[in-house]
């Protein structure tokens, strides 16, 4: 079959390196969504990403844009600094749940409360992926991990933390949405949410965050297909999808 014209391929904002993520990992999908949105908005030359600590620490290997790497959990603080020094740049911090919801809780809460004009992409896979599948603050009740081999018991390990709901009550947050990537429909919803977050940042409206429920087949000990089912059936039940906040912050 003779190829005539490329309709859709790799986005310009991603380079050609093969990603190090495991087969079926949600990071690759979200990387591509972010890159497609960057291309569509035409902001590749003034886009700065902040890579976290975790599996996505090497996000800077794959993006054709400027990237920075922050200390564990401190990506929102670094993003705030870059945005304040160079307000014309579009700044995204890309963080996992171990980075944002565990060691970096203080940074994300205060960045949101200050109404920093940055976008946070929060990848929630309910486990510590890079270090080998230990319990994260977002691990579901009863979910097995290497540090909770009998399932998470809330009497010993507390309850899974709902970051989006928590940040939505802060007066400084502008736009908070939770999405997932389990089907083409949900992927498109995630893309719409990320695009809206970047557009609000470009208008200078304040802190925006998109939480993406993402599969981790390796550490959940599931096949990629069953991992999608786990997200749809178990995670969405505890972490409902939807927009948690969408209202202007600064009324001047």
């Amino acid at each position, binding site marked *: *079959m*003779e*190829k*005539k*014209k*490329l*309709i*859709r*391929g*790799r*986005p310009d904002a*991603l380079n050609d390196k*093969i*990603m190090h*993520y*495991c*087969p*079926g*990992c*949600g*990071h*690759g*999908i979200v990387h*591509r969504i972010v890159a497609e949105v960057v291309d569509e908005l035409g902001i590749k030359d003034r886009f700065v990403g902040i890579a976290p600590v975790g599996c996505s620490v090497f996000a800077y290997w794959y993006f054709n844009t400027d990237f920075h790497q922050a200390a564990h959990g401190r990506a929102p603080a670094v993003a705030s600094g870059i945005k304040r020094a160079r307000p014309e740049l579009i700044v995204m911090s890309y963080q996992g749940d171990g980075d944002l919801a565990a060691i970096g809780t203080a940074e994300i809460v205060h960045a949101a409360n200050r109404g920093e004009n940055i976008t946070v992409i929060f990848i929630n896979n309910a486990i510590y992926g890079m270090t080998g599948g230990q319990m994260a603050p977002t691990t579901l009740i009863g979910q097995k991990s290497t540090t909770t081999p009998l399932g998470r018991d809330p009497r010993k390990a507390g309850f899974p933390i709902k970051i989006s709901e928590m940040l939505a009550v802060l007066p400084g947050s502008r736009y908070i949405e939770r999405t997932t*990537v389990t*089907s*083409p429909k949900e*992927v*498109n919803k995630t893309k719409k949410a990320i695009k809206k977050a970047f557009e609000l940042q470009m208008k200078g409206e304040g802190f925006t965050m998109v939480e993406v429920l993402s599969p981790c*087949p390796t550490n959940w000990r599931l*096949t*990629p*297909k069953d991992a*999608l089912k786990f997200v749809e059936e178990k995670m969405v039940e505890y972490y409902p999808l939807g927009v948690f906040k969408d209202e202007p912050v600064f009324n001047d």
Partner: protein
Amino acid sequence: MARKAFVDEERCKECGLCITACPKSCISFSSKLNSKGFHPIEIDHEKCIGCGFCIDMCPDTAIELWEVAEA
């Protein structure tokens, strides 16, 4: 002019998310191996309608959508 999906076999990691998304069930694992030891997918171009759902789901951007000359 028709649209068809094409896979870059070296990028494919055999996760099969494209197979769960394909409305025409035209994607399957092939029997060959790529350099990383995965069985890359193969796409039945007779059945492919070029919807691009596999591209939406592919974590490794291994699939491209091309306009092709009618056979």
